[in-house]
């Protein structure tokens, strides 16, 4: 990179415009643009092999040496130790897409990188970056409206959710848990449909809790109709199974009082000492009596218990769970219909939550792996997906994959329109944009063609990752799409001998695809608008 050129005034004295300008590096104009584009493309190169059902995984070693293995675009990009700011834009794109849609985080990054790549020849032709940016934007909106016309609907209802299994399975097919894709797809669909509000067609994500324990097999993964909390009952002699539980949900500790204001109690006489000691004893009793008096038969507390309080609870046949995290407390309150009670004085029978059955379960060999399961909650239909697997890494990956599948199902419940995967929709759009290009009399013609070509990056990538001859495969499918006027033809990654994705059951959500196209285009526009790159001189 070139140093910032020194400016000299008429007397020959150097001007200082920027602080420490000798140390700063600056590139501008077309060089800056190209530089940025190469940086963005480098990121794409890393993740493109993860795309599709035969995509590979990445092993990520964190700064502290922890290993995770994943296929999820967002996780890969987020964990890359990236210094380049333009490359970071691609990372943020993927994160934004994940937050919004949940699935397709790799695809969006690949598309953005392909768009960047196809800017290069346009820039060489001398087309102004702003023209490219605008042209891309037009092309993107043309694609979005076109894919709506070729979108399909999947019909399902509260009574029959089985059509949702197909898209869930497509989502899982690229992940390691595809060895159990049927089972996992079913879990994802059941989880979403049981917490779904069918009238508003909305899904409260908070009601799906994902818990995991290493050990066992992936096959042992199950959906629990209730909540699972990674904590055991606080005293070993308390009852471990409570039927028809009445739950007091507390956020106050069973400990000696500790007001927030700083204070001191000065003891100077024996009487005061005695009184204080007595007071303390009474304090614990009062706490437990208040709980007991409300009719509760289970205490769930966010904080710790003093030994004495713990014993008193046991003695009063009040099983208790301590150190339950904030989000769990809220979930329990929502599910059981209880109120979160911040002070012992406020415990009243109306504020208690209820559940059919609460039981402690032990996992594996050693007794310290206890979890508590709350089943039969009256209010919300909260569910827990309980993942098992042979090691920590596979469980973490399963968690991410299930999350993606759950997102897909949720999106379909909100909007049941789908497009066909396997690159079919991208190829159809590419053909469409190319046709449109011929009708445009401005420079946009070139830009549209470049956009069309960039759209092909997705099927190319799929074909490459599946070990097919990408170029000939793409050409073949394109010709077929045009001649048969069937926009559902795509890349046959699994070598099923059938390229109609409708028959193969490879679905993607329309919402997701549209978000991919518009988000990717936006980021590329942003990159195109940068024409100056100033790097501050490092600290000396």
């Amino acid at each position, binding site marked *: 990179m070139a140093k910032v050129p020194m400016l000299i005034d008429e007397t020959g004295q150097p001007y200082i415009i920027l602080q420490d300008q000798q140390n700063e590096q600056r590139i501008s104009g077309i060089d800056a643009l190209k530089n940025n584009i190469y940086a963005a493309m480098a990121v794409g190169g890393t993740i493109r092999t993860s795309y599709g059902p035969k995509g590979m995984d990445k092993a990520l070693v964190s700064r502290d040496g922890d290993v995770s293995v994943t296929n999820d675009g967002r996780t890969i990009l987020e964990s890359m130790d990236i210094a380049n700011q333009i490359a970071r834009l691609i990372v943020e794109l993927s994160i934004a897409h994940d937050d919004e849609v949940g699935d397709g985080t790799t695809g969006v990054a690949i598309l953005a990188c392909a768009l960047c790549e196809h800017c290069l020849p346009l820039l060489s032709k001398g087309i102004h970056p702003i023209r490219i940016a605008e042209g891309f934007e037009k092309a993107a909106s043309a694609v979005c409206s076109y894919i709506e016309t070729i979108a399909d609907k999947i019909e399902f209802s509260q009574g029959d959710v089985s059509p949702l299994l197909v898209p869930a399975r497509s989502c899982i097919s690229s992940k390691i848990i595809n060895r159990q894709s049927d089972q996992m797809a079913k879990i994802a669909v059941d989880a979403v449909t049981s917490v779904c509000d069918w009238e508003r067609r909305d899904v409260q994500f908070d009601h799906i809790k994902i818990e995991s324990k290493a050990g066992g097999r992936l096959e042992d993964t199950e959906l629990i109709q209730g909540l699972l909390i990674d904590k055991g009952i606080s005293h070993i002699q308390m009852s471990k199974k409570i039927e028809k539980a009445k739950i007091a949900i507390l956020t106050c500790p069973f400990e000696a009082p500790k007001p927030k204001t700083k204070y001191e109690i000065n003891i100077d006489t*024996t009487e005061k000492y005695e009184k204080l000691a007595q007071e303390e004893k009474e304090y614990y009793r009062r706490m437990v009596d208040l709980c007991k008096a409300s009719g509760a038969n289970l205490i769930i507390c966010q904080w710790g218990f003093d030994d004495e309080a713990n014993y008193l609870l046991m003695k009063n046949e009040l099983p208790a769970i301590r150190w339950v995290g904030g989000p769990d407390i809220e979930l329990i309150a929502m599910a059981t219909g209880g109120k979160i009670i911040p002070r012992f004085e406020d415990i009243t029978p109306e504020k208690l939550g209820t559940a059919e059955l609460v039981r402690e379960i032990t996992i594996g060999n050693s007794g310290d792996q206890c979890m508590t399961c709350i089943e039969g909650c009256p209010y919300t239909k909260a569910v827990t997906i309980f993942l098992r697997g042979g090691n920590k890494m596979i469980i973490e990956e399963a968690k991410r994959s299930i999350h993606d599948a759950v997102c897909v199902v949720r999106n379909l419940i909100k909007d049941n329109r789908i497009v066909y995967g396997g690159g079919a929709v991208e190829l159809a759009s590419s053909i469409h944009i190319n046709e449109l290009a011929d009708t445009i009399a401005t420079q946009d013609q070139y830009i549209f063609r470049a956009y069309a070509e960039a759209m092909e990056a997705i099927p190319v990538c799929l074909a490459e990752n599946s070990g097919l001859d990408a170029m000939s495969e793409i050409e073949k499918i394109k010709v077929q799409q045009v001649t048969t006027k069937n926009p559902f033809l795509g890349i046959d990654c699994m070598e099923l001998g059938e390229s109609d994705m409708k028959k193969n059951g490879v679905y993607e959500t329309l919402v997701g695809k549209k978000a991919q196209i518009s988000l990717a285009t936006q980021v590329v526009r942003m990159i195109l608008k940068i024409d100056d790159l100033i790097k501050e001189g490092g600290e000396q």
Partner: protein
Amino acid sequence: MSVIPILNEGASEERQENARMSNFVGAIAIKDLVKTTLGPKGMDKIMQSTTNTNDVTITNDGATILKNVAADNAAAKILINVSMTQDSEVGDGTTSVVVFTGELLAEAEKLINKNIHPQTIIMGYRKAQKVAIETLQKCARDNSHEQSKLMDDLMNIAKTTLSSKILSQDKDHFAKIAVDAILRQGKDVNVDRISFIKKVGGTLTDSYLDEGYILSKSMGVGQPRRIENARIMIANTAMDADKVKIYGAKVKTSNMQNVIDLEKAEKDRMARKVELICDSKCNVFINRLLIYNYPEQLFTQKGVVSIEHAEFDGIEHLAAITGAEIVSEFREGADYRLGTCKLIEEVIIGEDRVIRFSGLPKAGASTIVLRGANQHVLDEAERSLHDALCVLQQAIRDHRVVYGGGCTEMIMAQAVDDVANLTQGKQQLAMLGFSTALRQMPTHLCDNAGLDSHEVVSKLRAAHFAEKEKLGECPLGLNLEKGEVGSMEKLGIVESISVKNAMINSACEATELILRVDTILTSAPRQRREE
């Protein structure tokens, strides 16, 4: 165009061949590290801490070895985690799972060198795994209908597990200890309830299973050393000084007299607490925490035996077996559920005094007293017995057994081969690789025993092939004592099916996880400040 660096300094990206090579090298290195410990003739490892060179562990246990390996390789870390999970889930087979994963990866490496795509290998392995697990279920034997045979099975399982450990010399003795300890628990087996007392001195054969519970603590000074028909109170309470826990409480006095008064008040408070405890009519008081001299003296005066510092494990055990509740709060007129015990006495093991509780109301308690020449032997003996107990726990839950000594592996390998021969396409090669990996398990057993593994394993393979009509019934395996093929049925070498099952499943999952990786992204290590 110059390469634009997008990663931070110190971070790296390894792709394709490099990434795969790094994974294979790491995983196979870990496999090679532990493979020599496999089987009855396996060797042990010494682990020495870098910071404290006196801190030495000698072990044969895969999980313990790997826990102490500081690996800096993604695949190696995955393998270590697999072993740890196997340890916490089933307790044994921690070495086998790593060796088998390593072998599967070694076979995969060969196939990748032949330009077969990892995904194809994964598909082949999955098919093979399915066949192997089905075969495993088929060749399992269930003797639960016949009590005496079931007992034999349990004894044999324990013996097989122990035969690869330091206890192999006296495996009959220890197998009996382990089986007895487990059976005493009744239906609800919990290995944590069995405690170990390790005392240096004597020989390993002097170890025994005590009917009662042994607490390695001592009774208070001047208190009786033998109590019959004990009534026990178990507590978790402060018996040093009963501090006021209210935050901010602070003594501030103006003269000496006040200090004396307060000290007396504190003493009185403790005396009252002791009084309250004694009011419960207990004659033995066991506390989790320390008991200071003053309360101990009061207990002595009242004729109550006090035992201090029994730890969480101790009081939880005792509470479970004596039927007492763990008390933390005392008041007048309260009734406490006391525990009972026919006899508590102080006994001497070696040169140490311990407290023995016998004639307990509830079943399940047992203490294994281990004797041995030095601490290392005792530690390793505990780990070995713990493994055996875990396996027995699994065996109680699932009675089915399979033959050891490489027999089951050979049966599974043969079944996989049969299916592979009928499979068209490249997956066939992967399936054959899977069966080769299975056959490597007996090969390692032979190698470790100093036998000509190729010779012996091929004989075993031929013997299995000869009986192929009766797939799954052939009981032939390796007789490592004689270095020949022998009937596992006669030798009594059996393993619990759940251990084998868990081993194959988690090895396959881990293999798949590692094979799917084609890029390793490493972040720059966090900078540690000089201390």
